[in-house]
């Protein structure tokens, strides 16, 4: 018995943090969130949520998962221990993407149909503010210090930078056509914005708001129109960024200093969003057209497994 416990203990140590990891994937056509075990890389269960789930984010304490269910005009609250929806939050109409403010109290939600960003108070479950932005707001990001919230508007082709406290627009920056995702660098000094139609990522200095660089992605054998930049994930150390390239079926690894594309990973069809594991050694992409997620081993620089999760995987979150 003692031996067995010792073996068990040693196993858990060897397996490391990945063993305790869980991947959550929103399936926009199935109205579910797939739960995938990080250690075995297999589907554990699916959680029924509202209609057309896309954007997702965990609560600050990682106990809850918020899921934007666009066709039901609300945000579902999933208890991660119970693995079921335990409540709802208002969101304004047609929420697609949102961020949890570092204060843990507020959500900033893109209302795609109303050209608004709604601010939701989690505790009272009330919309407490709204900010007018461009046509079809989509991507959302918040700086680590909580000072700024950024939002892209797809048809207006802009990224809107707002003060998270006063809810006033600080600046509106023109970006390449049909911007999708936006991300702050971990130090908050840079703002990265992807463009679906141009297939580029534009980098801005957050303070001066000047454009400091542009990344173009060339995928051998794929025409210009087939390379579309969507989801962006920044490594915690700020040295690397990962960009999902949609119909090019690739995820790009970008050196944030030189803006050079280090390598391209061939994943499933039409990756929308990507997420890094807590130890930063693994990347997972949600592949919309092939109904699966791809696990990328970043140390060995290879795609190690694809796991079917449902129809229309869109958002991906990695939690404990």
């Amino acid at each position: 018995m003692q031996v067995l416990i010792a073996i068990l203990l040693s196993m858990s140590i060897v397996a490391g943090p990945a063993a305790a990891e869980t991947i959550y994937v929103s399936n926009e056509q199935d109205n579910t969130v797939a739960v995938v075990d990080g250690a075995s890389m297999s589907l554990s269960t699916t959680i029924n949520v509202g209609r057309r789930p896309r954007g997702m984010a965990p609560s600050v304490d990682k106990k809850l998962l918020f899921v934007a269910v666009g066709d039901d005009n609300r945000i579902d609250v999933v208890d991660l221990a119970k693995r079921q929806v335990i409540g709802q939050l208002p969101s304004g109409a047609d929420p697609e993407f949102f961020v949890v403010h570092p204060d843990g109290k507020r959500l900033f939600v893109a209302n795609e149909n109303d050209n608004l960003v709604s601010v939701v108070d989690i505790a009272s479950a009330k919309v407490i503010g709204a900010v007018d932005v461009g046509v079809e707001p989509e991507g959302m990001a918040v700086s680590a210090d909580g000072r700024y919230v950024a939002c892209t508007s797809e048809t207006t082709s802009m990224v809107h930078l707002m003060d998270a406290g006063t809810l006033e627009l600080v600046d509106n920056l023109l970006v390449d056509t049909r911007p999708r995702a936006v991300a702050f660098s971990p130090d908050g000094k840079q703002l990265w914005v992807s463009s679906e139609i141009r297939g580029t990522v534009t980098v801005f200095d957050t303070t001066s708001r000047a454009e400091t660089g542009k990344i173009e992605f060339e995928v051998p054998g794929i025409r210009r129109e087939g390379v579309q930049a969507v989801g962006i994930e920044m490594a915690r150390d700020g040295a690397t960024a990962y960009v999902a390239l949609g119909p090019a079926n690739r995820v790009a690894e970008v050196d944030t200093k030189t803006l050079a594309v280090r390598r391209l990973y061939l994943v499933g069809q039409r990756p929308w969003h990507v997420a890094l594991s807590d130890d930063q050694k693994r990347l997972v992409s949600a592949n919309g057209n092939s109904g699966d997620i791809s696990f990328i081993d970043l140390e060995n620089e290879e795609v190690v497994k694809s796991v079917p999760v449902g129809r229309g995987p869109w958002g991906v979150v990695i939690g404990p």
Partner: protein
Amino acid sequence: MKLALSILLLLLVAAPGSAAPRTMVIGYIGQTRMPPLPLGPLDQPVSDDGLQGARLGIADDDGTGRFLGQNFKLEERVLKPGEAPKDAIASLAATGVTFVVADLDAATLSQAVAAPVADKMLFFNSRAPDDALRQQDCRKNLLHTVPSRAMLADGLAQYFVWKRWQRWFLLVGPHPADQAMAAALRRSAARFGAEIVVDKPWTFRPANGRADTGHVTLQTEIPAATQVGDYDVLVVADEADEFGAYVEGRTALPRPVAGTQGLVASGWSAVNEEWGATQLQDRFRKQAKRWMTAYDYAAWLAVRSIGEAATRLRSLDPAAITAYLRSGDFLLAGFKGQGLSFRTWDGQMRQPILISGPRLLVSSSPQPGFLHQRTPLDTLGIDLEESACRF
């Protein structure tokens, strides 16, 4: 004189520095059309087809414009039946309009682009699918946002070839437009390796199927008209929507119906909700209180193209916008999954062709496997090498 000159100078100096938003006035010229008799009780009667699309384009252009100090305005002209476009064009030019959305039939459009002041303007054909306008009758001052018949036929043909529905029964209506569509379909069949096994004109008078017991007549007539040897799909060319819809479900052999009715190839359809189109459809329905048609979409594309160019250039200068639209760099997001641009050789906007059923999107062409040295979008319509257009 000196005073006038100094005022002029003052104006010139003041203009670029002023913080006031600058305004781009875009012209729209349409025609009063006899509303077609609705073939079915669910058909929506539309009288402002095209115009509403242009108006939505202005609202979308202003979405970006308000952040850049650019204002967009639509100057609308609608011709009476039979009215020549000359005066309307002149009045648009007099209000300083350079860009005109031409929601006109081919004959009127040809008059419009040849009007005395038209040389200094740029027209966007949002209505006429005639290939001649992109071929021998092409003009330097004319772009096309509505797909040509060749593009529609190619889009449909690729889907059939992908499905291996390669033997077609072509049923052709009596009007010149139907003949032109049939010619485009024959060209596509030859191009993509399909075979037209039966090629027949529709010779019955347009029947009113909505009369009481109308279905009884049709149930007798259609099987007789479709009593032919075997085929895979019945392709109907009936642009006036006079008989095509009567065919489905009544053919002698149980076969699908496609073309201008049934499974329809078009630049836009109200059933499209992919590639973010839901938002465009919602915005349109909120504004127009009806579904967005392919003509609305083509007019929207025209106005958005101008707006997109103005955004990228951060300028409302017509010459710069015209040059940019024709350059290889221009790319418009059109809710069909990839960027849209204008062909340099004939001014046609390259774009996917939607294949739609009455309730849902069925497919979108180009189909997988149809390759091209430039872009798969150029597998649809008249390609550079075969173009007869000489500006």
